[in-house]
């Protein structure tokens, strides 16, 4: 009896996913290291040297990060509250409408969407950000709602029965229990954002996509591959950070 329960206790503190959490950053660091080593060791042509200049790369990366971060932040501060609101009893009726809208945002091809927004709002970073927000909205909204809906109604009633107010129940019971599902949605959205932000370059929105388009346009295969790899590594780093947050924020005992 005591043996089995102590095993269970161990399970709670050390889930099976911690190994993946350690391996992923190591692998990413190795890849990134190899890329940097190649950058300095390879025999680059003059154009390649200019496009792959470390300072220039750093600038592009920061642009990309900004695109992703700002749109992600905007998605979080709109989609999560909306998801919470739509699961409250008075608003349940209209949740279908909002889900349909969010679905359109994601179902429409993002390349088309980004151009449409550019024509409407003018070329540049703001239009790119709006597109990204529309694109990443659904997974966050949907997972917020699914996560909250999945909380056992009897638990909510028990909590109300103890004298917790509706707001306290949301804050202390519903959200903590919905956190794993919500964070999974946020992670999906973030990875989507990092990838999709490469398209910003088409409407002059900046970011690492520039490396890829330059590579394609000037037939610089090495720049193209380097750019793609950089975006992929960037996406995986964001994914890893989100996984760590998920791991830490998931309440014990679930």
């Amino acid at each position, binding site marked *: 009896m005591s043996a089995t329960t102590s095993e269970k206790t161990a399970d709670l503190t050390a889930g099976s996913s911690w190994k993946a959490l350690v391996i992923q950053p190591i692998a990413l660091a190795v890849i990134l290291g190899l890329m940097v080593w190649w950058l300095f060791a390879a025999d680059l042509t003059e154009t390649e040297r200019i496009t792959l200049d470390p300072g220039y790369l750093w600038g592009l990366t920061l642009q990309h990060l900004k695109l992703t971060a700002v749109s992600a932040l905007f998605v979080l501060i709109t989609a999560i509250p909306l998801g919470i609101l739509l699961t409250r009893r008075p608003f349940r009726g209209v949740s279908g409408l909002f889900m349909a809208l969010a679905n359109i945002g994601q179902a429409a091809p993002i390349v088309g969407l980004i151009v449409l927004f550019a024509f409407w709002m003018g070329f540049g970073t703001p239009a790119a950000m709006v597109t990204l927000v529309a694109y990443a909205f659904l997974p966050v909204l949907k997972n917020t709602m699914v996560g909250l809906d999945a909380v056992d109604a009897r638990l909510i009633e028990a909590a109300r029965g*103890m004298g917790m107010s509706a707001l306290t129940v949301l804050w202390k019971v519903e959200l903590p229990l919905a956190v794993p599902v919500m964070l999974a949605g946020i992670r999906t959205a973030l990875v989507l954002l990092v990838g999709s932000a490469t398209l910003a370059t088409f409407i002059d929105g900046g970011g690492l996509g520039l490396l890829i388009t330059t590579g394609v346009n000037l037939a610089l295969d090495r720049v193209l591959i380097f750019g793609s790899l950089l975006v992929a590594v960037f996406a995986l780093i964001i994914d890893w950070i989100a996984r760590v947050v998920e791991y830490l924020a998931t309440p014990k005992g679930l």
Partner: protein
Amino acid sequence: MSNSSKITGATILLENVTKSYGSKKPAVNQLTLEIPAGQTVMFVGPSGCGKTTTLKMINRLIEPTSGRIVINGEDVTKMNGDDLRRRIGYVIQAGGLLPHLTVGANVGLVPKMLKWDKERIRQRTDELLDLVSLDPEIYRDRYPKQLSGGQQQRVGVARALAADPPVLLMDEPFGAVDPITRQRLQEELIHVQAELHKTIVFVTHDFDEAVKLGDWIVIFNEGGKIEQYGTPEQILAHPANEFVEDFIGSGAGLKQLGLARVRDVRMRQLPTVDLGEDAAAAANRLTEAHAIRGVVLDQHDRPVGWISRRHLEKMSTVVLPDEKGVPTVGESSTLDDALDTMLVAGSSEAAVTGARGRYRGVITVNTVIRAIEGLSHEAVEEVSVPVGHNTGAIPVATTAENGVITYEMAEDDQQKEDEWLTSANREWSETDRQKWENYSSLDPAEDVVGEDPNLKGSGSERA
């Protein structure tokens, strides 16, 4: 907490309470019900009869459409619902523990909301875990999913008691645990209540559970209509109408076994034999007592087996002839449990044990059968029943010297209530009957002993 020896419960009055959803028939219609202070009142009835709705109206998880809820003389119908609920303990099936909080944090939830300081919460938590037989050192920091169903349920009870509320509402709390655990939880609740004297309102669909735990039983019919309100003894001996009769089933005498304790009946005394003593002396004692068999006790006087004179004659010192053991029941168990134990063991007798498992005597199936016969003829004590009806008349409160509030009907209203309770127009339709028969697994078998399929379980298999 300081006056735990006295009644800490509060009187509850539901005054002409109605709950209706839209245009449909009201779920609870014009219910007036007094719950006496410090007593356990069981709500039983078929599903959809409004018993759970009634319970939840007491802490206003469900707001009554009309009528008043009065607790200890105070009208709580209009007060802040959250504040009210912090003053009332609430236990649901499987405990309703928050899975992301430790056992300790779960128990400390209400005190925390009431802004007790940390040290006081910690002390109270440990005290309560102790009360429900969970070692605080072991369980305080565990998470609910690391506990068994029965343990979770205990924590649920501890949590409900945390802020020492005068009233405890329990909504089919033991419905989800296995029969053996349920029996233990029920016994623990009896002990806890004997210590604390809370006002407990307990919803169940298991009539045996109601008989076992209740000071009073309210039998509800559809629409929150009270069919009978009385002590278990009264209801078993004098069911008010056909509805109640059908609910109890024909085994009323058997159900009274749930009321009688083993220590109340005459036990048989068999000669006892100590392990390791001289076999010849033991055999002599059996002969002197004209007994063919004796009970073997270990060094702590606990019964460990039967032994016959023939066996003894073949031994030099007493050893156990077989490893079958002996069915035992505690002397404070109900006759129902005793019978259960014998049937499960396939034996016609069981050893009765007292404190620390010491041997007290032997109970046989015959003893139990005689008790059944005796019980069904025993006169039931006349006691005045708390107020409970659906006539719409409102009772008058009186406060006793010790501060306990009781209610009474005005004289002509009382008459109305009596008439109502016995009125012939409370018809009992075929559909009602069918509902009962599908609902309760009580078999209307006529034979009292041996044939009744329910005999086996004081609630076993009756989910």
